């Protein structure tokens, strides 16, 4: 491995793409550059105007309630009121732009990549309108503060955030013997409240143990009962309790009693019953292996070498899920530093590396956001709780490649005359720049075409 290889891999595979000057600064110490980023507190977004998620949600819920009243004729006409997407879209745009600015400007791009990784691991998707205003706050409040902490804390923060509760339908899930269910059974037996097992299932399948992690349908159902009552504060009538828009535990929805799942009995301490289960699940070896595999897939290869997965799993278990220890083991994995075994960039990787490499600003409005939509990876919209996939075959389809090329061409036309593509090629790709690409850029008919060729080169398509 040459010196420049190490710098290019550190900046492009572990980071979000080199900026001009980055490789020279990293020099011979790619690993040290990454390890240094793990020191100190995680970076927070410091953008004016970003509000707490609870406030955003309370505003949305209040609007919904006003629209409902308006439709039943008790207030101003519904037509005069905003619809929820109209309220939330500008918030979404501001949140995404703040996120992109952080990714592009960051001197700790490894931490930003990890933030995106965990955001995607605990995916919420804005195809649910209520998530549209909350996805950014979810990342700021549940993910960012814990990216350099312990997995247990990250897990608890993610599952209890209102965005997750709402995305996976837990807010009204009611135990069959909960106080509310008993009340309804007496007064209106035809409207029987009950369990919604969506959040419980996805926590076990997607966030912790993994689909083959040794749990059964009975475990899912019991777990759903355990977290019945995990809900959102502020509502109407019976649901008026709690800080509007914030997590609240509603004893009236909670299934009472001790519960047994995953081979262990949990006494009922209300809200704490679910916390106790999550703490245990976070420390299970299946969780360690499942997430070690995902990390290795993200940073090493679509089918990660067993040696690396073993090493990360061991460190995870030995450190009880201390994430910086796991990241250090990843940095120290020789498998991650093989040149030429690069990961095919996702559309988001591709665009972010373009913005960083070309030093493009993210203006207010839709300018940057549209690129993600066109290339097929709209921010915070994986479309399913599994998050965006992370293998080449999921992203390298013919039509996807053509759109990427067309995007590169559009950028090339716009900026080619103001950039030196040949110089940039060395600055961004270091020794991973191939002689074929160098020749193609040198022979290009115009500055615009030269830049397009750099941005479409095989080594630039990968990280």
């Amino acid at each position, binding site marked *: 491995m040459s010196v420049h290889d190490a710098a290019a891999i550190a900046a492009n595979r572990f980071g979000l793409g080199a900026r001009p000057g980055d490789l020279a600064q990293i020099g011979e110490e790619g690993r040290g550059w990454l390890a240094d980023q793990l020191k100190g507190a995680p970076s927070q977004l410091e953008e004016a105007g970003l509000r707490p998620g609870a406030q955003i949600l309370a505003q949305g819920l209040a609007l919904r309630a006003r629209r409902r009243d308006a439709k039943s004729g008790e207030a101003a006409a519904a037509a005069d009121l905003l619809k929820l997407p109209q309220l939330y879209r500008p918030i979404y745009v501001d949140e995404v732009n703040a996120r992109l600015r952080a990714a592009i400007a960051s001197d700790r791009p490894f931490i930003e990549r990890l933030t995106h990784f965990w955001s995607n691991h605990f995916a919420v998707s804005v195809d649910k309108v209520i998530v549209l205003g909350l996805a950014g706050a979810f990342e700021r409040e549940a993910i960012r503060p814990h990216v350099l902490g312990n997995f247990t804390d990250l897990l608890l923060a993610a599952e209890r955030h209102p965005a997750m509760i709402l995305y996976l339908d837990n807010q009204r899930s009611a135990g069959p013997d909960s106080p509310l269910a008993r009340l309804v059974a007496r007064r209106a037996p*035809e409207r029987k409240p009950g*369990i*919604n097992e969506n959040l419980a299932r996805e926590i076990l399948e997607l966030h912790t143990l993994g*689909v083959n992690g040794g749990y059964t349908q009975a475990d899912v159902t019991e777990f759903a009962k355990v977290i019945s009552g995990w809900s959102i504060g502020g509502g109407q009538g019976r649901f008026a309790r709690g800080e509007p828009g914030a997590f609240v535990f509603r004893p009236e929805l909670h299934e009472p009693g001790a519960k047994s799942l995953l081979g262990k009995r949990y006494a009922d301490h209300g809200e704490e019953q679910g916390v106790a289960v999550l703490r245990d699940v976070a420390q299970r070896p299946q969780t360690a292996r499942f997430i070690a595999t995902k990390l290795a897939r993200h940073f090493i290869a679509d089918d990660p070498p067993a040696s690396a997965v073993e090493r990360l799993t061991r460190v995870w278990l030995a450190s009880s899920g201390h994430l910086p220890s796991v990241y250090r083991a990843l940095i120290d994995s020789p498998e991650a530093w093989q040149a030429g075994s690069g990961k095919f960039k996702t559309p988001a990787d591709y665009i972010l590396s373009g913005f960083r490499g070309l030093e493009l600003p993210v203006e207010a409005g839709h300018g940057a956001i549209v690129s993600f939509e066109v290339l*097929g990876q709209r921010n915070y919209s994986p479309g399913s709780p599994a998050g965006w996939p992370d293998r080449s*075959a999921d992203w390298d389809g*013919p039509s996807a490649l053509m759109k990427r090329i067309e995007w590169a061409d559009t950028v090339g036309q716009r900026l080619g005359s103001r950039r030196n593509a040949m110089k940039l090629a060395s600055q961004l790709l270091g020794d991973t720049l191939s002689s074929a690409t160098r020749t193609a850029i040198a022979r290009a008919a115009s500055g615009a*075409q030269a830049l397009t060729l750099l941005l479409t080169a095989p080594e630039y398509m990968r990280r």
Partner: protein
Amino acid sequence: MILRRRDFLAGALAAGGGLLTSRVVFAGSGASSEARFVFVILRGALDGLAAVPPYGDPDYTRLRGELAFGAPGTPGAVLKLDTQFGLHPSLAFLGESYTARELIVFHAIASPYRERSHFDGQDVLENGFAQPHAVQTGWLNRALAAVPARERKELGVALGQNVPLVMRGPAAVASWSPSKLAALDEDTLARITDLYAHDPLLSQRLADAVTADAIATAGSNAMDSSAPVRGNARYLEVVRATASFLKREDGPQVAVFDTTGWDTHANEGAAQGQLAYRLAALDSGLRELKQQLGAAWGNTVVLLATEFGRTAAINGTRGTDHGTASAAFLLGGAVRGGRVIADWPGLSSGALYQNRDLKPTRDIRSVMKGVLGELLRVTGAALETSVFPDSGAARATAGLTRA
């Protein structure tokens, strides 16, 4: 001069021996080359008991409560299929197709998958094996590789930016999706093609994209539109592109696209609401497909299937959780339709799978095998050995098509 990609392709074809000509060969005649097959994946687990309500089942209304549909002739009624089953009222075109004997409705049908993960369920629906992640290829691609007299470059096309698992494998397939970016000029495209010469993956993908674009946009100005295409409009554009591919005599015979939004855990709705809206959109797209295909509709079979069904009873939030068996549809001019095919297990608590879901009584691979054999002439030996190797117990259903 700026050339559009389709002009570039036409130029390459005219030049002879160019980039692509050597790989595009026109198909010979023969009954099977007329046949067209479309696989529509309904991702998210379609509620079969809402799409095809078994209104005649004595336990149905009790289980479905406020989401139950009325019998024909009552408010919010189903569209009647027979004395047992109806269609969701949003499925008007499917109802007409049933009357015209161009629709078979399957019920209590499922893939071999018996757990409740969307992602593994879709993997099984697409890989054709009994287990998730058994292979990295799809049954439809393996079937294409086994189609006799394969004279075309690509027998299959995936409508969408990326190729879904069901279409991945040894056979070359095209893919296409709507774009709002400007097309490249000829010279830049040629240089990128050169740059990819030593990268097998990218060179293959690029060649496929160029071919697909030429076909999808032939005779239309869709590529010139700069207006963003969203939601249902995008789906209709995918449907129209599907028809463009399948109408060509030398084009693909098989297309795949998917639709999402079927994961109705809360506030599913009945005659109105979330699911009704999705079903109406699906139905109108299928009507559009028939119109766009014109005469080719007579040789077409469309299979619509989902990864699994949903719970028989509604949950505590007026929706349904992950279940097991669901419904599936076989639609098209080449379908011997006007039938419901179901070994109905019933909905009494003893009849439910694990006391919660509609019990599967039919392996959907028997339908897939029947269609592939009759329509695309995939041999029984190929179906048993390479396409669905562990499906011996699921015998091909005969007589589904007019082929």
